[in-house]
């Protein structure tokens, strides 16, 4: 009975994993299917012959590498900026009482209420008048600004999980508030920082709407916009598009492998009684 239960649990998990990963599998499958087989064997689980031609032409014959570089720059810088600002703001929300705190919280929440479509035109105007159209800077500024509220609340919840006694013990031990933050609290928030960093990175990596609006020149296109160049007036180059998609997954995967060990929770266990 028990093994049956355990078995069915694994079965359910396996079914879910299969379901979640199937689109990724399909992406990979199309990417390695030779062009002339795409329409004849498009629905087969595995093509009769495989090729790396799509990858070759994406890497060597298209602007893909430039898009890729742009995306990495924008995503990394946005993620880093957002996380630094959100960590500072989140700590303040978690630890200090100050005038206007609730007002700031409400403002931050309000910014999350508007659908992006509503503000895209004003944003375009602002960016244009700053002369930042077609620059990666514009995307970095916009992504950072839009992600700060959520990231701040996320970081605040991580700080809330760390007992104030630790800040105070550090201050009794001779730290300034800033030293207590840097030497005691921040190391304990590494999982939180990693989560925030990862979240913002993936959000920026896959963002299309603003990138489409604010960037027109091929030089500054990010990857999601670049993908659209595989859609021409008369046809869609499925194979190359999918190959590019597979390549686009690589940095996200690497990034998560890198931060994965910080995501492991439980670092604070033992701080307080237990």
């Amino acid at each position: 009975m028990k093994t049956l239960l355990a078995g069915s649990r694994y079965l359910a998990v396996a079914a879910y994993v299969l379901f979640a990963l199937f689109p990724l599998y399909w992406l990979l499958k199309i990417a390695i299917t030779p062009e002339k087989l795409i329409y004849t064997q498009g629905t087969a689980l595995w093509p009769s012959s495989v090729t790396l031609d799509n990858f070759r032409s994406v890497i060597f014959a298209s602007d893909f590498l430039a898009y890729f570089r742009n995306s990495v720059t924008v995503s990394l810088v946005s993620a880093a900026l957002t996380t630094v600002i959100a960590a500072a703001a989140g700590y303040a929300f978690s630890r200090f009482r100050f005038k206007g705190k609730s007002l700031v919280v409400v403002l931050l929440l309000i910014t999350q209420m508007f659908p992006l479509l509503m503000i895209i035109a004003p944003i375009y105007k602002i960016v244009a008048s700053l002369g930042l159209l077609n620059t990666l800077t514009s995307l970095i500024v916009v992504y950072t600004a839009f992600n700060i509220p959520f990231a701040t609340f996320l970081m605040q919840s991580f700080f809330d999980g760390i007992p104030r006694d630790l800040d105070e013990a550090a201050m009794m031990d001779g730290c300034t508030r800033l030293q207590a933050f840097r030497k005691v609290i921040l190391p304990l928030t590494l999982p939180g920082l990693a989560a925030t960093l990862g979240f913002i990175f993936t959000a920026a990596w896959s963002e299309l709407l603003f990138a489409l609006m604010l960037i027109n020149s091929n030089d500054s296109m990010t990857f999601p916009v670049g993908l659209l160049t595989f859609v021409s007036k008369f046809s869609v180059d499925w194979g190359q598009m999918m190959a590019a998609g597979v390549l686009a997954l690589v940095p996200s995967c690497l990034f998560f492998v890198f931060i994965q060990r910080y995501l492991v929770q439980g670092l604070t266990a033992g701080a307080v009684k237990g």
Partner: protein
Amino acid sequence: MARIDIDSLYKRFGAETVINDVNLSFEEGDFIVLVGPSGCGKSTLLRMIAGLESISAGEIRMDGKRMNELPPRDRDIAMVFQSYALYPHMDVARNMGFSMEIQGRPEEEKRSKIEQAAEVLGLNRLLQRLPRALSGGQRQRVAMGRAIVRDPSAFLFDEPLSNLDAALRVEMRLEIARLHQQLGTTMVYVTHDQVEALTLADRIVVLDGGVVQQVGTPMELYESPANLFVARFIGSPTMNLMDIKVLAQPLGEQAFLSEASQLGIRPEHLTPVDAGEGHLQGRVEVVERLGADSFIYAQVPGAGRLLCRSKGNTSLKPGVPLGLHLDLPHLHGFDEQGQSLRHA
């Protein structure tokens, strides 16, 4: 070592006054225990001394120097938190040496001081462990080690034993007493447990509702509580309290009792005698034999349940009538306001 003076201290959280006109002086090397029920403001007072809580009004001085505006790091005070507050990402040695790390002390000095403290507290073999791999008692020791290493001019403890089990609590209590004898540093210790207060303190400060009720040595508080609150709070089992009207005849020479509305007598000063004799008449309700002592709970009409504590065994059985003799020199009287009449 330091002398600490507290003058007309107030702490308000919004409209609530949590510390209300507190005036205290702690002599150099004193072991002071702040005791009172939960929520009476003990921690707040301690945190104000530490510099972790701002001062609404009044002044705190150490060795005559005003402390009000000094941040915690400049006060040369070490604090042991109720939660221990060990740094989870640092091993025991680094936890204990963190203050020296911040000051940028040389490596050898750090090592020797840590080893010294570890020796005193029996932590030598745990120096490389992380806090999460320690038992509650060991964490408690590390927290104390972190304080000792600094050789501060005063130690503050906020209910340091309340997270330990009973046996360990007694052991650590002795350890703290020994530490105080050894170091001779001024210590301010907060607890809600009057047994800890009586056993550890040179002087006890009883706090209720942010107001100091009484300051004195353990025996002073036990023998002459200033008011009903202290009388009830200090001593276990607690003092018997009864309305003055339960006494049939006035108690001759105890003139001070003429204004009393309540009487108090500790269980060891209430002696069971034969029925018909003594000052009060009642009936045995329950007898508890503890070996060295016996507790006799008596129901006395008008006074309710009174407890006698007598040495050794007793032949009394539940249900039998008995008389109760009050040891008059140890009788306490309290007026309408609950102030002790003897104390004044």
